[in-house]
């Protein structure tokens, strides 16, 4: 691990949906180049925290700092411009759109033709093919719809997209949940590649064994509260599972 200081820090984050308190005074931080496993049972608040830190939801209370500056993540576009990317369980791709269109969605490369800005399709396809090729993905055709890719390939395209756009921080929300054992291993291998590139990762999962192999630190949530935070060398996977199961640190 190559930790050089804090990349993102969230202080006292609270969020309610009607009468349900999804998060209560949660503090969270991640350093440059660090992989943090964000774990907890269903309804613990993991996805809500990620959505707040990636600009999808706005917190009711609390402050967020990115690279030392206080930021207001009022939309996912603002978060993406800061270098925060999120990869969801289904890969956050549009099934009926082509691979290259998905790859550049929200950050299209444009050129000017007859005073009108149009998509630079040639360049986008070339960049997409070259980048995906460099990380070992060679789909039949980039014009094919994403729906033809396997779950593992979709995750790889999403993670590849985040790396291409020079993400500083990637949230992986249950990236291995719907995958076969072989595909999950491939995605974990991918995560190691991302780490080599010096990108920080927050890995959200139910499967402690998947995250344990790659994470440096673990943050455990339970019913909207942070109940524990451990460095990898302090805990075993079984110990973390025990905390999640019982809902408290022994």
């Amino acid at each position, binding site marked *: 691990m190559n930790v050089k200081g804090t990349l993102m820090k969230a202080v006292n984050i609270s969020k309610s949906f009607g009468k349900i308190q999804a998060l209560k005074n949660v503090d969270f931080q991640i350093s440059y180049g660090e992989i943090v496993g964000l774990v907890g049972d269903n309804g613990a608040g993991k996805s809500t925290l990620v959505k707040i830190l*990636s600009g*999808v939801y706005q917190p009711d209370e609390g402050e967020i700092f990115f690279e030392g500056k206080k930021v207001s993540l009022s*939309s*996912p*576009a603002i978060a*993406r411009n800061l270098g925060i990317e*999120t990869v*969801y369980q*289904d890969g*956050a*791709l*549009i*099934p*009926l*759109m082509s691979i290259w*269109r998905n790859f*550049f*969605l*929200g*950050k*299209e490369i*444009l050129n000017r033709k007859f005073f*009108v*800005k*149009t*998509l630079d*399709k040639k360049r986008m396809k070339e960049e997409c093919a070259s980048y995906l090729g460099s990380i070992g993905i060679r789909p039949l055709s980039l014009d094919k*719809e994403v*729906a*033809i890719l396997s779950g593992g390939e979709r995750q790889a395209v999403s993670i590849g997209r985040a790396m291409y756009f020079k993400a500083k921080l990637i949230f992986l929300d249950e990236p291995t949940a719907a995958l076969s054992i072989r595909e999950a291993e491939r995605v974990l291998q991918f995560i190691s590649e991302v780490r080599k590139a010096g990108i920080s990762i927050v890995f959200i999962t139910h499967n402690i064994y998947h995250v344990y192999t790659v994470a440096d630190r673990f943050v455990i949530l339970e019913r909207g509260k942070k109940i524990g935070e451990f460095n990898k060398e302090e805990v075993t996977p079984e110990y973390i599972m025990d905390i999640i199961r019982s809902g408290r640190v022994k």
Partner: protein
Amino acid sequence: MKLKILSFFLKKKEFPVLFSLTLFFLVFSSFSSRFATLENIASIFSLTAEMGIVVAGITLLMVAGEFDLSVGSTYGMAAVILVFLRLMQINILIAILLALGTACFIGFCNGIITLKAGIPSFITTLGMLMVIRGLIYFITQGYIYKLDAPPLFYKLLSDCLLGNFRISVIWFIIITLVLAVILSSTKYGNWLMAVGGNKEVARMLGVNVFRVKLITFILTSFMAGLSGIIATSRFGMVMSTFGEGMELEAITAAVMGGTLLSGGYGTLIGSFLGTIFISSVKSGLILIGAPAFWYQTFVGIALIIAVIFNSSIARRIIE
């Protein structure tokens, strides 16, 4: 190799409508020697042009995952505004701009109500269809009003260029091509497909779903208004039933052209062919001397077959 070529065409969104159109032309040409003549084709295109412009707009909205059932009323309202402003001696350009502005305002209301209140656009626009149609009846009191406009107005919008071939066909083709380029080659078009395909994913990737959908609602109404103005120039008058029933025909044409009702997938060229198909059915049935009421039955059967084709293509892609 042959199988590869066949599979390539089968997977094209436009295939079902192109196939139906070709089959229809072959069958009807054998029944009536007047069907496949240049004169009849020109008249099919001329009848198609106004509907086709509405279909082009509604296709974009359907790709964005929304509906507009109020296009027929918007078409009628734009025509009524134009004719009434002319009756008040308002300058033709200002009258056109105000008619188009009214159409855009209807689209804006459709969009704002649907997106802010979170109700399905099917319901919002069904309500708007009735509201606007009621207003049209109120304004016209059921009478027919003649349009008074300078010759250039007719020359630019609806005059015959060659035989039955009207200039409105040129507008129809230009609009279809421009919107096709917008859909396939601009950021807005890319975002349109994304919000129709999965609006949550699109939002998470930074797409402004609200803005994209609102613009498309307005654009659809603008096309309906423009089409209403072109139709007024062809008929030289307006009446309270102007555009009635147009919405279902427009959606039918778009669906036949390969646009999915579920959104995220569609093509302007397919919609163009779908509109031509519907007009050809009208013309073909008249030429073979079939009773007029067979028209709807025929279009209905063709629609169901096209949807079966389309869903099987979409399923094949997903599988």
